[in-house]
């Protein structure tokens, strides 16, 4: 006979033993995972850590640059030291917890001239830090007082697409083409040999199970030192977003979400939803789609079905770029504001902006001192330079993707060349006419515009397109292309010197008189180093030509070509029609080296990057003493005299 007391004691002992076993098992698993992480890091370290610099961000003082405020384009948000930090493409914003804007750090001013992409708080260290991933400058680290820059030597590792803080303080840096890196702030390693080339889009998890979302290889799971890839389990192989919570992970793709439990695939959710961001909390899965607003799924339901989040059904920006937790509250990060995901209420908003977009494609100052700003894909803004307030915004089927803006001498008309035709504005700023292929242009896409006088003294407008040239003389519209002898159909830039039309193309330069090709120059028959001519500007009898790869060259009236030492040996791409000549200097916008400047009378070019919102200078314009410098990440203004000082 066994007494009841004995049975109770036995039960207690068994319970304790079970708990002990669980504790031992869990501890062993944690220790093994931890050790594997360290071993993995140690193995990588053994093969050599990667060179990088960690230094205080100390940009040279920009010579009088002023940034025009562009739409914020919020990317991510995080709470740090009691405030809310929001990362836009061109600036980092600090808000109080009540939503009051406290401070802005601009790319190119206080921060390196690269777009900002990701944001997270590093934990597991004595003093938490705010890490900001950039598209070219590595990671920026804010401790509340100063910025430091962790800058890998390898250029691919300087483009950060995702950041994750591990509980032990290790930071993971995902890159769009160069794999996954880890750092403790002192050393930088490639995280795992098998992940050396993955295109990282998202990171989630921790030391026991790390999830790595990729652009084209599904999702990788790193666990206990080994990696495993899931692809067929996902609705699509492109991973857009990840969230891990209590042993479960949700993988957002363009065609729905896959759920994993304890590292194993469990089910697919939200079929067909473009899951740009995911976040799970309290049995609910929040999904931000690209085009349908925010969904909320009850994960405990037998068949979870997406339902619209309250407040997001109408009225609010439906395209949340990210979902994040702020004080335990699910927050949707939209382009211009942060909202409560549950009710849609606005928590904070971006400051008012002058510009519709930061991606500038063309600039022109007109005779009325208005700055015409053509955007990559947001139409045209017209700003009064006296007041710097937006006068008008134009955006429609034609005024959408802008390439070039020119003012016609004499009548003051403004011509806007776009991917969908040529828009003509009257001097008063009213859209008067649109020309396209149906009207006689050789193609809809207009890349450059030039105004000429004909031999008879009439007016001629020359339109460059990827299919050749169109000449407009009154009601007479005619075209030429390679059939008529143009060196290449793809014409990017036009200039004129002494009555000769110079057409810079993908395949060299053609010189035309009265619409007939007189001569063409390529690398095969001239001293051109590069056939691809992207920009041109006339200076007296000479023409400066921007090239794709060989910087700027000068062609004199005899078609002799002069090259410059600063462009020899280094690959310098001049952006299309990003060449400007003033009385003082020649300016060239480059794809990655900022703005090149050649003072008149000198033979040496200098490169300026400080003060620019990006090193990718896409458009230039001048007005008296001021230069307007458009980039792919904003617009800056500088007094020319300061610039040349």
């Amino acid at each position, binding site marked *: 006979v066994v007494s009841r007391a004995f049975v109770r004691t036995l039960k207690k002992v068994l319970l304790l033993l079970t708990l002990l076993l669980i504790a031992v098992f869990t501890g062993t698993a944690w220790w093994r995972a931890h050790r594997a992480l360290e071993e993995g890091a140690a193995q990588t370290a053994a093969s050599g850590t990667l060179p990088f610099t960690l230094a205080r961000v100390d940009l040279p003082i920009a010579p009088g640059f002023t940034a025009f405020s562009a739409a914020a384009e919020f990317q991510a948000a995080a709470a740090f030291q009691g405030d809310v930090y929001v990362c836009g493409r061109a600036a980092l914003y600090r808000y109080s917890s009540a939503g009051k804007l406290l401070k802005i750090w601009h790319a190119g001013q206080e921060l390196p001239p690269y777009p900002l992409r990701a944001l997270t708080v590093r934990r597991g260290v004595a003093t938490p830090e705010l890490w900001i991933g950039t598209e070219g400058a590595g990671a920026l680290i804010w401790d509340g007082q100063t910025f430091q820059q962790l800058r890998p030597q390898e250029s691919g590792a300087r483009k950060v*697409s995702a950041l994750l803080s591990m509980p032990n303080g290790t930071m993971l840096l995902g890159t769009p083409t160069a794999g996954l890196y880890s750092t403790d702030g002192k050393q930088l390693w490639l995280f795992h040999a098998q992940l050396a080339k993955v295109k990282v*889009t998202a990171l989630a998890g921790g030391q026991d199970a790390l999830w790595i979302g990729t652009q*084209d290889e599904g999702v990788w799971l790193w666990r206990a030192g080994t990696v495993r890839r899931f692809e067929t389990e996902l609705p*699509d192989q*492109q991973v*857009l977003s990840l969230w891990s919570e209590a042993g479960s992970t949700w993988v957002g793709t*363009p*065609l729905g979400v896959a759920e994993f439990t304890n590292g194993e695939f469990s089910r697919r959710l939200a079929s*067909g939803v*473009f899951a740009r961001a995911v976040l799970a909390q309290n049995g609910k899965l929040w999904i931000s789609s*690209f*085009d*349908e607003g925010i969904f909320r799924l009850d994960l405990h339901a037998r068949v979870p079905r997406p339902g619209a989040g309250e407040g997001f059904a109408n009225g609010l920006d439906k395209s949340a770029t990210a979902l994040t937790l702020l004080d335990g509250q699910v927050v949707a990060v939209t382009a211009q504001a942060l909202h409560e995901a549950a009710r849609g209420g606005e928590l904070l908003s971006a400051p008012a902006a002058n510009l519709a977009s930061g991606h500038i*494609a*063309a600039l022109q100052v007109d005779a009325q001192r208005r700055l015409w700003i053509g955007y*990559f894909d947001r139409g045209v803004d017209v700003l009064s330079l006296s007041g710097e307030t937006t006068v008008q915004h134009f955006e429609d*089927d034609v005024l*959408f993707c*802008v*390439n070039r803006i020119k003012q016609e001498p004499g009548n003051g008309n403004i011509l806007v060349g776009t*991917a*969908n035709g040529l828009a003509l504005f009257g001097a008063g700023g009213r859209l008067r006419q649109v020309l396209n*292929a149906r*009207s*006689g242009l*050789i*193609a809809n*896409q207009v*890349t450059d515009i030039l105004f000429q006088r004909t031999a008879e003294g009439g007016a001629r407008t020359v339109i460059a*397109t*990827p*299919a*050749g040239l169109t000449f407009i003389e009154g009601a007479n*519209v*005619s*075209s*030429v*292309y*390679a*059939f*008529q*002898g143009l060196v*290449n*159909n*793809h014409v990017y830039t036009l200039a004129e010197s002494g009555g000769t039309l110079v057409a810079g193309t*993908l395949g060299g330069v053609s010189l035309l008189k009265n619409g*007939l090709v007189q001569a063409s120059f*390529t690398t*095969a028959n001239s001293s051109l180093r590069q*056939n691809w001519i*992207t920009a041109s500007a006339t200076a007296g009898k000479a023409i400066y030509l921007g090239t*794709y790869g060989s910087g700027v060259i000068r062609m004199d009236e005899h078609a002799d070509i002069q090259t410059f030492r600063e462009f020899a040996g280094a690959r310098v791409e*001049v*952006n*299309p029609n*990003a060449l400007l000549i003033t009385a003082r200097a020649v300016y060239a916008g480059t*794809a990655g080296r900022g703005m090149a400047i050649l003072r008149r009378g000198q033979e040496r070019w200098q490169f300026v990057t400080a003060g620019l919102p990006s090193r*990718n200078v*896409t458009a230039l314009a001048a007005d008296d003493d001021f230069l307007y410098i458009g980039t*792919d990440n904003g617009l800056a203004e500088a007094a020319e005299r300061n610039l040349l000082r």
Partner: protein
Amino acid sequence: MTLTMIRIFALMFLAGGLLWADSGVIIASGQTSPDAAMLAIDSLRISVVIDNGHATVHLQEVFHNKTANVLEGSYSLALPSGAAVSDFAVWDDVTRIPGVILERKRAAELYEQIRNQAIDPGLLEAGEIVESEASGQARHSSEFSVKIVPIPVFGYKRLEAEYRQNVPMAQFSGGLAVPLKAVNFEPQVVGKLFISLELKEPQSIVEFKSGGHSFPLKMSAQTEHVVRASFEGSNVLLNDDFSISYKVQAKPEISVQTYRAGSRNEPGFFEASVLLDQAKRAVEGTARKVVVLFDTSLSMQWEKLERSFQALEATLRALRPTDTFNVIVFNSDALTFSARPVAARPEEIAKALDFVRATRLRGGTNLQKALTAAFAQTSTGGSIVLLSDGESTEGAVSAKRFDAWLDKAWAALPQGPRPSLSVLAIGDDADIRGMRRIAAHGGVFEQAGSAEPLEFKLAAFIGKIGLAPLDGVRLAVAPQANTSLTYRLGQDDFPGARAAWVGRYQQPGNADFTIAFAARRVTKQVNLPAQETEHAYLPATWARARVDALLEKIDREGEDKASIEEIVRLAREYKFVTPYTSFLAAPRALLRPRLIRPGDPVLRVRTDASIVSLIALFPFGPIAPLHYLKNEDIWQTRFVAPEDLADGAHIVRLILRDRNGHVFREQKTFLIASHPPALRVQLASSRVRAGDRLTLHAQASQTTRTLTAQLYGAAPVYLKWDATKKSNTAVLTVPASLPAGRYSLHFSAEDSAHNVSHQEVALEVLP
């Protein structure tokens, strides 16, 4: 605009396809070219039957999925001009799923239903419109393409396609080519290739040749009227097209083919034909006057203009110095090379060609003005040659009005020296019926589609310029009441051609067939049989002729319900596509439901109206929602290609959502061609003598589409890839009349994005 984005000369085309279609190719999704390691052609059986000038080409292909994944792919079949798909079927395991012809509206509805079930249906429509590259102008396609899904893991997928094509006869010779050589890709290897050919010819076959050395035919029968041959091989590299040519005896005998199924209620069909053997009317040595009308309107941009120029140059260089010529370039206006025709001396021809090259393209097409100018040049006779797509946009635009004007203007010309009007219709979108009507004014008609070589057609076309067609070519059948709805096939009344008619007969019995031409009459008594099924092509050939006649009527008089209903009925019964019917290759195929227009660097996608959201996933990372441009009914976005993105074909994925929440995934190919093709020329000798044949060798980038060389005074030659020599080669004949001296041999290479490279090589012509 950033620099990097201008690198895109995006040739957005349809799933997996580049600008020129390839025949019998499957490209697996996610790939940009056929990959035998993934999807190999296990076997290909080609059956060609040519019966009295009517070819039926049947292709049966078996593809092998060599991967452990279920694949989907895009199958494309380029059609020669005048060819029409008559059948298409996909095998799903042991089940053959044939395509069906449906009325267009019904086909569109079914297509939608099937597509909503996440199965891609295929839809082929006559005159389907795609958009040309940079201009954005619409053009019609001669390509049939379908999406094939699923192709099982390590499994096989069998496809069948059939098309019909007339084999025209010129100078008593006929020829047919079945395109097999890849245009855009590396030549493919076929595990097992079997080609069978049956040539049945009522006239005596005096010569038979198979072109090329790649497919040596084994003859199993070769009689006066029949040739049977075959080829069989394993692991065959498709680096050549399969082609044959034959010549028949010039005997003006009537031949009559018949078909009757045997049912008492069904009519029988006949085809009566004769070889027009009359001697050439034009007296050798008599000076000719040729006025060429050269279309430089915007619709002629790119290939059509190049082909027109090729035709112009060949036409002018075929003239003798005693002949005279003039060239009128026309668009909205008409501009004449010379005030009056000039002697066809080499220097005048060179000047005329330069004149055309220097002429700018302009908006519209005014055929009326061009012809008026040509009539003024030929008031004393001669030949007018029209090189155009015939899309008249100014002057008399409607077919009815234009035809009335032309007939009146033609009648007003002095009857004796009235000029002939020959037409070379350029391009897949040419107004064939309208241009045929122009050519009916004493001239010759020919069409040059984009998917076929021009040389053969051009030679036949030029050979007839200046010749007068035979008068009074007509057929009479007695008893007349027993036959009905008889139609002439083609309109070639020139010596050496075959004149043929198709018609129906009601009752079996004897009939007298009489064909008259050039004051001659040829008669034959034929027994129209109660049952005869050998010439199976006849019912469909007649139906096609009947539909063409109805379409002509609609062109002239406008649409009427009865005509449309009859067209739909005949098209469905005999399986061919018309403007009122579509070919639905259900349920697992697709023909371009959407259309991407190239841009630089703009991505444009046309969808059906149900799509409410479209997002592009670019291979280099960015995700961009496309904006719907209402006025253009097109979705558009712009993208930046990274600097390190290599030249070549890349894939952009599209996620489409319709108003019912259905989500579709598509992928499209775009081409980055940031560099013109590299070109390196080698000459065996830089010194030649007039009349010498010089072999040219050139290396050019893989992206090169056309590679030409031209010497002053000579027509350009096209260099073709020669695998044995590992070089592009051509033979150039130095004109015998070329004076000694130093000349430039001009090479140009053009890629699919119309980037052009040039190289000039000095050539010394020795005395």
